[in-house]
């Protein structure tokens, strides 16, 4: 039970934030149009998913940047910054449905690929480029004759929108089918590639592409939820680094931009040297027997 705790939280959160059942029923409204759509979820979750109850933060950010009046998005950016400072990439490890989907795909028993440092390290920087170019730069500066930009990331890259929004909406609404074009084909190809890669590589979208993960990673070193290493207790066995699915060395860099706070290292450390703290030394989550489930 304790071992599955994170999975239960991830799944529970995914269901809770996509709980608009009427969207999936024939004849009902295609998506939820109620008051909760004023608020964003902290993780990636397409707001055009028939079940989505909240807005997607990356979609909302691009909508603000690509709008005619080029307004600074105080509301969404303030929200994302607050979430980043509070929790950093804890959101990725615990509150993102697309992260969970990739983890489940990785459970399919096949030989796994662990990319060597090159090209892994340079590829991890790609997500910052996606954030800068596709989410901010192009929506802000590349405009049509009417002076409106495009949400480039949503339109050309985001596999979350295709999986959670595109496929169910096209299956449930016949009226949308005549509008299918090369763009849908392209986005399906991106999705298939992402799904296939997730079977062999642990969370490839999160590691290399996700602009939201990139944004939250900027706050890892100052986030209020952070990892602590008891250097006196550490016996230097390297177990934490071996078990980390994101290829982080928590002893060398406990608040690495790549750590998704999955707690695998905390559970595996034989010397109980790793813990998660809130703020200073405050609340601690150590690998006591309860967490290890032994």
């Amino acid at each position, binding site marked *: 039970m304790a071992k599955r705790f994170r999975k239960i939280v991830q799944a529970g959160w995914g269901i809770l934030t996509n709980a608009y059942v009427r969207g999936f029923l024939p004849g009902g409204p*295609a*998506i*939820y*149009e*109620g008051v909760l*759509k*004023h*608020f*964003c979820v902290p993780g990636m979750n*397409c*707001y*055009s998913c028939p079940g*989505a109850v*909240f*807005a997607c933060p990356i*979609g*909302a950010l691009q*909508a*603000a940047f690509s*709008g005619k009046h080029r307004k600074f*998005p*105080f*509301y*969404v*950016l*303030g*929200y994302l*910054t*607050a979430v980043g*400072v*509070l929790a950093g990439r804890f959101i990725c490890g615990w509150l993102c449905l697309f992260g969970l989907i990739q983890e489940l795909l990785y459970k399919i028993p096949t030989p796994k690929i662990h990319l060597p440092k090159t090209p892994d390290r340079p590829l991890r920087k790609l997500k910052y480029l996606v954030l800068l170019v596709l989410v901010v730069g192009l929506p802000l500066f590349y405009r049509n004759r009417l002076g409106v930009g*495009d*949400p480039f990331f*949503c*339109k050309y890259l*985001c596999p979350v*929108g295709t999986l959670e*929004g*595109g496929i169910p*909406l*096209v299956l449930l609404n016949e009226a*949308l089918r005549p509008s*299918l*074009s090369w*763009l*849908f084909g392209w*986005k*399906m190809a991106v999705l298939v590639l992402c799904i296939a890669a997730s079977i062999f590589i642990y969370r490839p979208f999160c590691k290399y592409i996700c602009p939201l993960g990139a944004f939250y990673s900027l706050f890892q*070193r*100052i*986030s*209020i939820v952070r990892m602590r*290493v008891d250097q006196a207790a550490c016996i230097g066995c390297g177990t934490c680094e071996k078990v980390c699915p994101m290829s982080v060395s928590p*002893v*060398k*860099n*406990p*608040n690495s931009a790549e750590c998704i706070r999955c707690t695998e290292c905390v559970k595996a450390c034989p010397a109980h040297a790793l813990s998660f703290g809130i*703020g*200073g030394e405050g609340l601690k989550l150590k690998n006591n027997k309860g967490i290890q489930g032994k």
Partner: protein
Amino acid sequence: MKKEVKPLLSLVILAAAVGMCIFGAVNGEMREVFMKAARICMECIGLG
């Protein structure tokens, strides 16, 4: 091991972020988020 960052910095940024969020909300930005989120986004689903 990398140097620890003072919790005060985190709190200052958090306060600024909450302030930004409230400022945006009272300036009607929540409505803009809603307007986009409550309609099918053709670009997001690969139709636009």
